[in-house]
């Protein structure tokens, strides 16, 4: 089990999600638990609650998981996925209000340094206007 916050990348496009994860790996390394998911249950552009839940499991850390999302449906589906996770994990999973690529890199960098879930989210959200 990692002592670092896990990062989950959720995009409508599997290519964007994987590409973002590649950038995080190259810039931050492999110590931060990281998972990505993209595409709807039919294989088209979109997101899938089931796949997001699997990604959260894959990136799970006792310190929690920060999710980075692209557009509306990715956020709604991620929030739904959190509610469907086991109760003792729900309050350790957050959706960051941040741009997906920059947010993922910033969040992973912060997580790598051992920051708490709150600190990881705050760092990612500093990228958001307002």
């Amino acid at each position: 089990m990692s002592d670092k916050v896990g990062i989950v990348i959720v995009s409508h496009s599997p290519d964007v999600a994987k590409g973002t994860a590649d950038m995080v790996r190259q810039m931050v390394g492999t110590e931060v638990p990281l998972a990505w998911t993209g595409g709807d249950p039919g294989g088209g552009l979109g997101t899938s609650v089931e796949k997001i839940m699997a990604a959260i499991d894959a990136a799970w850390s006792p310190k929690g998981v920060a999710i980075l999302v692209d557009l509306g449906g990715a956020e709604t589906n991620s929030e739904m996925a959190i509610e469907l996770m086991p109760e003792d994990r729900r309050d350790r999973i957050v959706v960051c209000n941040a741009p997906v690529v920059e947010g993922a890199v910033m969040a992973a960098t912060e997580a790598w340094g051992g920051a708490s879930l709150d600190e990881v989210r705050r760092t990612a959200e500093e990228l958001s206007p307002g």
Partner: protein
Amino acid sequence: MQDTMDRLFETVTARIIAAAEELTALDSAIGDGDHGSNMKRGMEAVAADRAKLAALAPGEALKTAGMTLVMKVGGASGPLYGTLFMTLGKELGAAPDRAGVARAFAAAIDAVKARGKSETGQKTMLDVLVPVSAALSSGASLAEIREIASKSAAATVPMLAIRGRASFLGERSIGHMDPGARSSVIMIEAVLDVLETKA
């Protein structure tokens, strides 16, 4: 009751599946053009479960169908309609009367508002569901509810979208019916058709 529930599932799923192209066309105008295909995928999965749903109590059947929509739809409409169905199922008692259905429907809509962080007037499905819920609670006839649903969907045409992807379009979202409002009307009309042939 169980038989009515089965006919409701049959009719609602068939109507949405048949309307997939229309919904996608509406969504292409102001969203990302996937509402029809997403809802079709979800409703096909619910329809495939009909035999299983028919064996369940109405509340349980609605909860199960809602979870199927959450898992299969793929867009924001999955959690939104899924939450509507699941909350309706949770709040519906074993043998609900009209007042009980109205209360459960109102609770389900509150859950949809929370899920979508949205309110009426933002060019969404809520602009149909909220007035229909109010009519249901106030004792309106089925014919009156039908008219309110249709008028409410039409009223989304001049609205400015504030939620979802349509909001990126700003003023360009004006002049098109909201796809979620349309899919809500289709479902409500399907339900009314079943209830009226029964009545």
